[in-house]
């Protein structure tokens, strides 16, 4: 099997993804050309809705990494970063973006035009260390950008208390002040309410999309997960709502007509941790034995329902919750989430990606593995790999482990 491979997409809407991605980056460059302030920020936080409400352009350097992986640019970026002294043991998102901004960025060979230079750098200490450090390095690389360095509580979901929320709301207010001062644009609170409503609507749609995963055969698989792009980059816009509505409609129809991702669905699998962005084709690998990856943990962080009656607080809550939801800040919550998904989606076995590039999502996996076995009698297999660096992925080892695992599952189900 190959080290790098694109996935086969079955959904018509997933096939539209190239257009959706291209349009987003086009919009980013257009914004820059028109003098609209461009701000770089980490994903999964309420600043994105604020940006759209204030007609500013958000750009997501971390999200650029999967794009680089899909275009095969990652090794070149790694070479630059490692040449600068960034250790090979660091998160691949960090090495990729650092290599990119110090290397090929601005060159004319870069797909989608690359990323427009930031006028603003907006981030918070409070996610993982690499996400924070990426922006600290960006401060160096783009010394003219205005910087907002927020401060966010790092707290497990089950331990959130009023003072955490108050502090997060306070940070949102500080951010609004900063954006108003640096860009001269005023925040229209009615517009913010609309944006938050749209954001919540897309989350509701996403949740609905996920419910179709209950169907046997499943009408959607992890191979189509790229559709999440709109949840990452377009939260709070009509574009996201329209696109997700289309996805929902397609899934509904498929589900009603019993059309599965594969014809003869024999095994339903769960994927924990970030996918291998350079080898999304991996999700199709399982199909040879009638297996389909029905769900994954990672996508949960992008859909957080909001109390739209208080937009500012809603955004603060979203920011507070999204990183802990999938990381080791809240192993307990993550475990519950995985167990719930496995129960609801009728999962036969779990693939636990032990991800060299992401310690926060990997720590705690052993506890999840044990809970799956003890509470749900669901076996799992550990896959040693890396979401960005294919040097840490051995297809041969993967194949041996996964084939044996699937055989065992088939036997367990009496299908062998």
């Amino acid at each position, binding site marked *: 099997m190959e080290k790098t491979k694109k996935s086969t997409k079955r959904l018509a809407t997933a096939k539209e993804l190239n257009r959706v991605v291209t349009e987003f980056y086009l919009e980013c460059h257009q914004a820059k050309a028109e003098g609209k302030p461009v701000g770089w920020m980490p994903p999964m936080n309420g600043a994105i809705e604020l940006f759209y409400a204030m007609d500013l352009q958000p750009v997501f350097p971390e999200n650029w990494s999967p794009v680089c992986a899909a275009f095969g640019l990652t090794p070149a970026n790694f070479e630059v970063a490692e040449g600068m002294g960034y250790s090979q043991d660091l998160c691949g998102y960090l090495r990729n973006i650092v290599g990119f901004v110090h290397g090929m960025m601005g060159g004319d060979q870069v797909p989608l035009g690359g990323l427009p230079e930031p006028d603003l750098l907006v981030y918070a200490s409070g996610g993982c260390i690499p996400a924070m*450090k990426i922006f600290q390095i960006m401060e160096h690389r783009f010394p003219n950008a205005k910087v907002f360095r927020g401060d966010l509580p790092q707290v497990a979901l089950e331990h959130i208390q009023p003072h955490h929320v108050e*502090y997060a709301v306070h940070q949102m207010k500080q951010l609004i002040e900063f954006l108003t001062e640096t860009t001269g644009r005023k925040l229209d609170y009615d517009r913010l309410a609309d944006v938050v409503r749209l954001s919540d609507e897309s989350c509701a749609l996403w949740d609905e999309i996920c419910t179709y995963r209950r169907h046997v055969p499943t009408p959607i698989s992890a191979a189509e997960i790229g559709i999440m792009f709109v949840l990452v980059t377009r939260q709070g816009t009509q574009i996201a709502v329209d696109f997700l509505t289309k996805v929902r409609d397609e899934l509904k129809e498929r589900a009603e007509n019993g059309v599965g991702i594969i014809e003869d669905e024999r095994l339903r699998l769960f994927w924990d941790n970030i996918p291998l962005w350079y080898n999304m084709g991996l999700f199709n690998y399982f199909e040879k034995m009638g297996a389909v990856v029905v769900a994954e943990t990672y996508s949960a962080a992008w859909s957080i329902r909001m109390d739209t009656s208080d937009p500012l607080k809603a955004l603060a809550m979203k920011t507070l919750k999204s990183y802990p939801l999938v990381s080791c*800040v809240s192993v307990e919550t993550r475990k519950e989430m995985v167990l719930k998904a496995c129960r609801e989606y009728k999962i036969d076995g779990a693939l636990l990606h032990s991800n060299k590039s992401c*310690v926060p999502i990997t*720590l705690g996996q052993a506890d999840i593995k044990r809970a799956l076995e003890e509470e749900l009698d669901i076996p799992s297999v550990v896959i040693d790999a890396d979401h960005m660096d294919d040097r840490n992925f051995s297809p041969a080892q993967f194949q041996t482990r996964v084939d044996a695992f699937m055989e065992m599952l088939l036997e367990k189900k009496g299908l062998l």
Partner: protein
Amino acid sequence: MSSPTDFMSEFTRALEHPGELIDEISQSGKKAIGYFCTYTPVELIHATGAVPVRISGGPMRIDRADGLVPSFVCPYMRAGLERALSGDYENLFGLVQGYSCDVACGMFNVWKGNIPLSFYHILSLPYGDSSSAKLFFEQELKNLTERLADHGLEFSDTALSNSLDIYDDIRLTVLWLYDKRYKGELLLSAGDFYTVIRGVQVTPPERAEKLLSELVSSLKANTEKGSHTQDGTPILVSGSLVEDRSIFDLIERSGGRIVADDLCTGFRYFDPPSGDGKKAVHRLIERSIAHFPCPSRQLAKTRAPLLLDLARRSGARGVVFLIQKFCTPHLTDIPIVGRSLREEGVPYLVIEIEETGVMEGQAATRLQGFFEMIGD
């Protein structure tokens, strides 16, 4: 009065057999509370009558911990978990940790899921120093005291004030030792020096305070006899945790003389000695915020001038980074901090610490080369 060898053996025992120490604490009717990193409010824990003890890992072969955590997290944390799984920490009452890095947080949760202790608590620490950040911190501390009180560990302002006094005194004494070292007047080898100051971090503070003051008296009495740490190229060591004294011995044997450090198990634990404030809790907050920063909480561009300043003050001619393998905060900052150092004419060398320590032969060759290059 005891001789320096007595202090050394007491501290060494505390470091090498953490389980025994904790058993003793619990046998004396006190509750021992463990923590990983210097951002944990030890004074507050102490003020409730509990004894804060820093968790030791130490160079060792990891076996059981491998079943619970991946191999690509820092050896310190894996070794600490290994000890816990082998029963060393079974008499620990609880674990309290401030969210410093992802690994510290994740490991806290892995402990929680696998090591049955009565009390687990993690705090979120602010990064900024604004008044709202301080207020937030105060609320986090209040939250901790309430949880401790639920477990029978009551706290009062007076008790906190007393605890702060004890810790301030310890820190002042250790910083006095540092000062002596800058001047080349310290009689202790680097290995002994770090055994003392790491020993202080695992010994009950009242006892540590006493041992330290005896050590100081004995050092003062012996000052005239001269020092055996005078030789070698003066250097600063920077990094996360160094638990293996043989690394310090190796540096000295290879021709280096450590005059200052920026280690989580060293200077960063003690500087600044105290914080100002009318209320006891404000003293704690001010000190915590003024903490000589760890890369997990501060920008490389902020830390670089602090390191340069430390190098200048101590007369260090170069920096040796001693980094726990896979330690993201430290590894990420090296290119930026390193560039600043080089631009100011301070060369550096990076050495990574594996689970069984450093590879002696290889590290010795690199260290010798480095010291020859920067020596006169």
